[in-house]
């Protein structure tokens, strides 16, 4: 029974690992192939099945004038927009979540839960519904096709995630902890910063991770709200496509674009496995 259990456990781990890793390996090998090796039947192993070359990668950094697509600038644009929007969303979202968790708001029939739901309802709507208002809004304040405009829109999209996660998290932190901090001589801001926040780091990390993921992978709004001045990575990658699908440079760009998320995932995993999440509050 026990042996069967161990066997099944490792069996599924191996199957799942193959399932997860295979696409990456496939993309990695493909990125070093040329037209011949991609279209001339299935090939797997470099130098044996095909002759690797760096053309796929070079296209990504060559200027358009030389027939490349230069993703360096969009890459940093994407990093900048995602990080800034996530950071602001986390700060604003955490503050609103704390208020929603600790204070009672009432405006007619609107109460705390309704406000929390209002935030998350922004994410329930299909993005297409929001696209026209966003477009008109940004154009009226002259922020279309700009990094600032994108940051504003992304904050609207990401902050609900932060609020939603953090309200739930703060509700689990006993109020008595805040009260004790007040009694021990903290004013309400100090109580929040010195006591509640340090005990909410796991929640902040989870919220931050979701914000970064959703910000980084967004194609739709980046596509609609920018034209020529500013471009984000997902839009640029799609622009790679032409009459002949360049699988090699698409693979290379896919790997480059997924890299930050993998780094984030490793950092988060490190942090959460330290045991900070469990038993924080007894």
């Amino acid at each position, binding site marked *: 029974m026990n042996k069967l259990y161990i066997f099944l456990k490792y069996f599924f781990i191996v199957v799942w690992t193959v399932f997860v890793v295979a696409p990456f390996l496939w993309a990695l090998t493909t990125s070093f192939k040329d037209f011949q090796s991609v279209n001339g039947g299935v090939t797997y192993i470099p130098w044996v099945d095909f002759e690797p070359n760096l053309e796929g990668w070079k296209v990504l950094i060559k200027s358009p004038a030389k027939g490349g697509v230069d993703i360096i600038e969009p890459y940093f644009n994407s990093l900048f927009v995602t990080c800034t929007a996530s950071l602001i969303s986390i700060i604003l979202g955490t503050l609103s979540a704390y208020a929603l968790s600790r204070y009672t708001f009432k405006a007619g029939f609107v109460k705390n839960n309704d406000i929390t739901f209002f935030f998350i309802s922004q994410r329930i709507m299909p993005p297409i519904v929001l696209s026209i208002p966003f477009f008109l809004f940004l154009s009226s304040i002259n922020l279309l096709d700009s990094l600032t405009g994108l940051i504003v829109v992304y904050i609207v999209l990401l902050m609900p995630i932060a609020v939603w996660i953090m309200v739930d998290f703060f509700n689990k932190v*006993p109020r*008595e*902890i805040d*009260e*004790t*901090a*007040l*009694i*021990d*001589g*903290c*004013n309400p801001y*100090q109580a929040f910063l010195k*006591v509640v926040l*340090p*005990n909410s780091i796991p929640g902040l990390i989870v919220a931050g991770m979701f914000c970064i993921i959703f910000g980084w992978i967004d194609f739709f709004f980046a596509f609609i709200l920018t034209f020529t001045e500013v471009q984000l990575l997902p839009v640029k990658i799609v622009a790679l496509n032409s009459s002949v699908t360049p699988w090699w440079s698409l693979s290379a760009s896919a790997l480059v674009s997924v890299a930050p998320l993998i780094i984030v995932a490793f950092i988060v995993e490190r942090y959460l496995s330290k045991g900070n999440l469990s*038993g*924080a*509050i*007894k």
Partner: protein
Amino acid sequence: MDLVANNLSYKPDDQYHLNEVSFNFKEGNLYTILGRTLSGKTTLLKTIAGLLTPDSGEIKFDGKNFLKIPVWERNVAMVYQQFINYPHLNVFENIAFPLKQRKIDQSIIKEKVMDALKSVGLLGYENRKIQELSGGQQQRVSLARSLVKNAKILLLDEPLVNLDYKLREQLREEFKNLFSKGLADETILIYSTTDPRETMELNGEVIVLDEGKVLQVGPAKEIFENPNSLKVAEISNDPPMNIIEAKILDNHIRFEGIDVEAPQHLSKLTEDGLKIGLRSSDIELGENGHEFEVELAEISGSETLLHLKRGDTKIIVSIEEVLNFKIHDKVKINFKIDRAYAFHADGKLASSPFGGLNG
């Protein structure tokens, strides 16, 4: 520096949490707030701490309006019934937290924290994480944190209730020692509890609270000997005092076909609707006693609690030994009737064996 409250009321929903509560706490004294759960004890302590603002009434400390001062400037300390500490800090940092907040010199902080750790018996634990401690140790940490501040008002909200029996006994003993020698003369100590035994052992001034209302104020002995009403008698006894509807006629107490001679302090009471109160410990098993039927027998610690019934009268008897009874067994009991209380129909004390309101 006295802490004086006048007519504090707090009614957040349709029930009073505090109802016209007034008190006058003098420095250097221990006050015990005795009341059942939801009687408003925590609300009262939180109001004193400043975490709640009463709807009406005033609190004055040292002659100043206390309600105008925010919590963080009140210099009070509070220990909760849940073991509340800062989970992100270790034991030393937890206790040092209120001192750091006052920007006190590092070396003085260290000295004071070590003193506090010593007085709660946790020396050597300063680098432990809070989560690694047992419940009793966690509660000691929060006690140390409240002691280290040298607060003028120290609030303890049922600090022992979430501990197991043995730890509770042990900590209670330590608390008593701490209170009697370890506290500065100007500290006002306010301790809330549901446990009458704890109240008697702490032996301070007792405030009996029920449904947000102060029922009686007095020294523990006085509350125990002369509860001014049925409610107080119930709250200040565990198990609650037995209440028997009886008639006193011709110097005899009669109920359920039982007829006992009335003791002197009850002999003059003849009114209708009189209620006789008798502690469960003032009833004993006896060969030629009155017959009752066992409804339930529970063994708690080294004593047996018998729930008995005769006609419509139900009583609880506590016996200082472990005995086995079956349900529906018949037992014979005698009343130590000279220890009986009498209450008027409206619940007010009519006569007590200790001389309260004789006659």
